[in-house]
């Protein structure tokens, strides 16, 4: 079971909601960028930065921090927004996303923003980097290390063969402190994943590659907490958590629609709202929490 109290869950849900609002605002300000994936991953990012990971916003280079390696860099609006809400940099800086001179590059860049672990954007390389980090850590600390290496990937991204090279190596080396979280939102740019390049059965694939596999509802904090704790307890193989998420989560007119993968509010499909209404309506949807989370906004 999860260790989270109802009070903590309520707090996480409210934080995730504020992060989603920031995502909408920063994307509107940027005028380009990805919307669906960031909204879908807001709960997992919130969980990791507000309880799931060992880290310290006041000391970003803390030696013993857990590492978060983002592989699908295009969902960086949720990454940046969560880091800002966690205290890594001022919330106002989010408005600089994708602008000239900003630390918040369109895809994350470690030279601009040294407090992140890796640059990413071209898909399929994050897991390799996470495996390398964990192997380096093992040289120094052996299996007694208390760090965890969280690698966040998309599902469409698993089309890239390099992932499977890294998966084989992680299993070969039995990297127990590697926790891969796949954002299983079933969409990619050209359509639904099972139409573009079928991934199912993802569970069977990972099991065949000798990973410890869990599948969860990626919007349920108790499920996320339980799965991460389980993954941390596995000692002889790497773990993957296949997190089923809803792309565009929190904004009903964006949910489950792959056309919202790579466009910001104001430039999306007009089935429900005209372009000039999309940003206000997205924020309005997020601010109406009745029935959506355990406790209303207080």
């Amino acid at each position, binding site marked *: 079971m999860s260790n989270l109290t109802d009070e903590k869950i309520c707090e996480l849900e409210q934080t995730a909601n504020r992060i989603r609002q920031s995502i909408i605002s920063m994307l509107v300000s940027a005028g380009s960028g990805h919307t669906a994936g960031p909204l879908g991953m807001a709960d997992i990012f919130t969980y990791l930065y507000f309880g799931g990971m060992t880290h310290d916003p006041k000391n970003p280079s803390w030696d013993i921090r857990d590492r978060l390696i983002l592989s699908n860099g295009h969902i960086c609006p949720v990454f940046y927004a969560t880091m800002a809400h966690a205290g890594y940099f001022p919330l106002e800086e989010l408005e600089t996303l994708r602008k000239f001179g900003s630390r918040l590059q369109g895809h994350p860049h470690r030279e601009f923003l040294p407090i992140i672990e890796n640059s990413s954007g071209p898909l399929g390389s994050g897991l390799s980097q996470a495996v390398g980090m964990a192997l*380096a850590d093992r040289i120094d600390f052996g299996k007694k290390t208390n760090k965890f290496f969280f690698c966040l990937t998309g599902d469409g991204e698993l089309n890239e063969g390099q992932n499977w090279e890294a998966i084989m190596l992680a299993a070969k080396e039995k990297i127990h402190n590697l926790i891969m979280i796949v954002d299983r939102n079933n969409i990619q740019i050209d359509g639904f994943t099972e139409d573009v390049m079928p991934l199912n059965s993802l569970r069977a694939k990972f099991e065949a590659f000798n990973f410890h596999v869990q599948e969860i509802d990626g919007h349920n904090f108790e499920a996320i907490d339980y799965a991460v704790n389980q993954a941390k307890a596995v000692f002889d193989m790497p773990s993957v958590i296949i997190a089923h998420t809803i792309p565009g989560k929190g904004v009903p007119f964006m949910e489950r629609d792959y056309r919202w993968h790579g466009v910001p509010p104001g430039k999306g499909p007009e089935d429900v709202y005209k372009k000039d209404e999309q940003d206000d309506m997205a924020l309005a949807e997020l601010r109406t929490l009745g029935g959506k989370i355990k406790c209303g906004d207080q």
Partner: protein
Amino acid sequence: MLNPELKLRKDIFDDKNESQPIRAGFGIGLVEAGRKNEKVVGLCADLVESTKMEGFSKEFPKRFFEIGVAEQNLASVASGMAAMGKIPFISSYAMFSPGRNWEQIRTTICYNDVPVKIAGSHAGVSVGPDGGTHQAIEDLAIMRVIPNMIVISPCDAIEAKKATLLAAENGKPTYIRLAREATPLITTEETPFEIGKAYRVYESKNKKTVAIIATGALVFNATRVAKRCEEEGIGVIVVNLPTVKPLDKETILNVAKEYRAIVTVEEHQISCGMGSAISEFLVQNFPVPIEFIGVNDVFGQSGKPQQLIEHYGMGENSIYNAVHKVITRKHV
């Protein structure tokens, strides 16, 4: 004559000069680098023996990782290790690393600016019988174009050893180009070597007429051509340019001003290689006529190494002819 300050081998022009594969120097240097610094780690893509990583893997088994035939993973795993403070050396054939994993090198190594060292073995057509698929003649081009990358192409096994040791300490992404075949030794342990420096290997006593700037195994051939030219009364200097990036601009500029005609020599495509790097620099600073010795926009094929060097226009006669051709262009 050979530059006495460089303490080069005295038997360069003997028929029985000593040869070693350039890759062997990498293997020896890597073991030494591993002894000097425990942060040095080795990763290989199923070519431990032929890329000469065997010595390191045996002496430091806990710091060696067999990645399998997976060069993209090889590059990015090394990037992750470097981000954690290690100094990773990755090795494969140059055709596969940096050939196959270019984008991973660009993004996860160079864009991250982490000190991964890429040893590309079996570069050039002198790989021989394996044929064109295995002959990397584009590697200098694709490495020197990436920001943050240092590119070194040693002329012999001893220089490769020194390059490996210095690469372990330079804190930057670094490509070291290695050749498979036994290559005559030119340098000695006492020969100076710094990353970013070019060396005046051979200087004729005659009037300064043509400068040959060479990199890699062909520095030897260039030196023999210079001697032949000197005997015919033509004043030729040979500059060994082991570091293709960053260029030793001072030496290149001085040589251009002194000789006012250049032949560049490399076992690589003429396009975008070392000669191109030199012409990019000189055309903006001190334009002089340049002839390029290298592969001219074709793929390699099976054959004996020397046969292929001759066939693709990189043999001593080709260099000699280029020297004469560039002389005719000097006052045009």
